[in-house]
């Protein structure tokens, strides 16, 4: 242990010397070797981040196309809620937080987590503190389980690896309905796609069967049989689908940007290290020359 510590101290002490005229001893050679190794690893990292960026770019194009259709689907779906708003604001809301399992994509997961925390922290929203939370995606689950471990009732993963399908959304909706969790209204917290470089958290409201039945606006609609329950369940699946595809597009764009930044940082680092390495090499050569010349003149 102490040896390890000593070597670290030694390295730290040796590093600044490289910039100045380093003495031509074994220590200097080792530092040069170290810089070379470091350069190599940073170059490899740059290669990885660059290719990850390329992958995210192609995936983003696909995800954006899917989002366009999914968004329209969501708009058409929420039309009925706009015409039939709930009579009174719900007290016990079910929060469905939509993120994904994978990292390396900037603040996409903390964006939805923060939005959820903000709603819970806001006293004026009138939401019960023990309102249930369900999370799609492991990353936000980890974040929310630290803040609201008691509210977390159900989590989903393995969704959003590829472009989400309707059956994913239907499966989630089915499990939510079957879970027997009590709530008056549903709020889906997801990332809204603003542009290819930005996103923001947003909340999509979905009304439950009860809320729809009590809404005065909903009474204007004519129905042959009572299909409110079916409509509410179908709407939930649709809304989850719309949130999933939009969140997926945001994730891909965020990943692309994060990888772009990482590649830029890596190339900055490479140029810095290259400079340091060249300087060190030059200094070592000069020192060797000085040694040879002084040796020769001493004869």
């Amino acid at each position: 242990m102490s040896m390890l510590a000593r070597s670290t101290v030694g390295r730290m002490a040796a590093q600044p010397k490289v910039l100045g005229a380093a003495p031509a001893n074994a220590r200097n050679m080792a530092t040069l070797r170290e810089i070379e190794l470091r350069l190599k690893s940073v170059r490899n990292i740059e290669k990885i981040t660059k290719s990850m960026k390329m992958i995210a770019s192609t995936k983003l194009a696909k995800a954006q196309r899917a989002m366009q259709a999914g968004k329209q689907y969501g708009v058409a779906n929420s039309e009925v809620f706009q015409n039939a708003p709930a009579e009174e604001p719900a007290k016990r809301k079910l929060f469905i937080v939509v993120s994904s399992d994978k990292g390396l994509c900037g603040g996409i997961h903390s964006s939805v987590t923060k939005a959820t925390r903000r709603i819970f922290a806001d006293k004026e929203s009138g939401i019960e503190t023990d309102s249930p939370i369900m999370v799609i995606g492991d990353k936000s689950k980890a974040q929310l389980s630290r803040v609201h471990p008691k509210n977390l009732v159900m989590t989903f993963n393995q969704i959003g690896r590829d472009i989400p399908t309707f059956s994913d959304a239907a499966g989630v909706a089915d499990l939510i309905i079957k879970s027997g969790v009590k709530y008056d209204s549903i709020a889906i917290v997801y990332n809204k796609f603003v542009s290819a470089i930005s996103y923001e958290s947003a909340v999509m409201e979905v009304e439950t069967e009860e809320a729809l039945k009590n809404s005065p606006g909903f009474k204007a609609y004519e129905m042959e049989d009572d299909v409110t329950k079916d409509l509410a369940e179908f709407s939930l699946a649709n809304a989850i689908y719309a949130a999933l595809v939009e969140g997926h597009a945001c994730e891909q764009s965020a990943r692309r940007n994060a990888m772009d930044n990482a590649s830029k940082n890596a190339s900055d680092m490479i140029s810095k290290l290259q400079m340091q390495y060249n300087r060190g090499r030059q200094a070592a050569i000069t020192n060797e020359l000085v040694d040879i010349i002084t040796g020769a003149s001493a004869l």
Partner: protein
Amino acid sequence: MSTLCLLSTTARRAPKLLVSQCHSHAEVSDKIKLSLVLPHQSIFTSTDVIEVNITATTRDMGILANHVPSIEPLCPGVVEVIESGSVSKKWFVSGGFTTVHPNDKLTIGVVEAVSLEDFSWAVHMNLQEALKVAAGNRSEEDKMDKMSHSSGVESISTMQIGMITL
């Protein structure tokens, strides 16, 4: 088929007085804004159309402008959209919901829809095969499995309707 649609249309438009009260603005458009959307594709987005004929679970119905707000669950069948004049387009849709909104908007959300023009004869041949299987004396479950495999659709009878209207 079309007479039936018209009949049901007139029936639906019966409470016209009430409807005109709702839409008190001066010019009443004779077109309805249709959004026919699938999860992976939007066929129509707030497009002005003249008439839409759907197969709801309870009956077939035609929807024109100034229709009473209503919610109709769709069963697998054909949706016909008449955009202008007598030009009509048909889609075979899986189940979903049709909602007529008070502001003269019509939204149809279905999980899957295929234009009837895209049905090829290969599908027709598969359908014949599926019908043969249906007529055979296998167990129900086996039949369903075979049929959904060969025809690619869930409901054979509605598929037939689709083929007839084609």
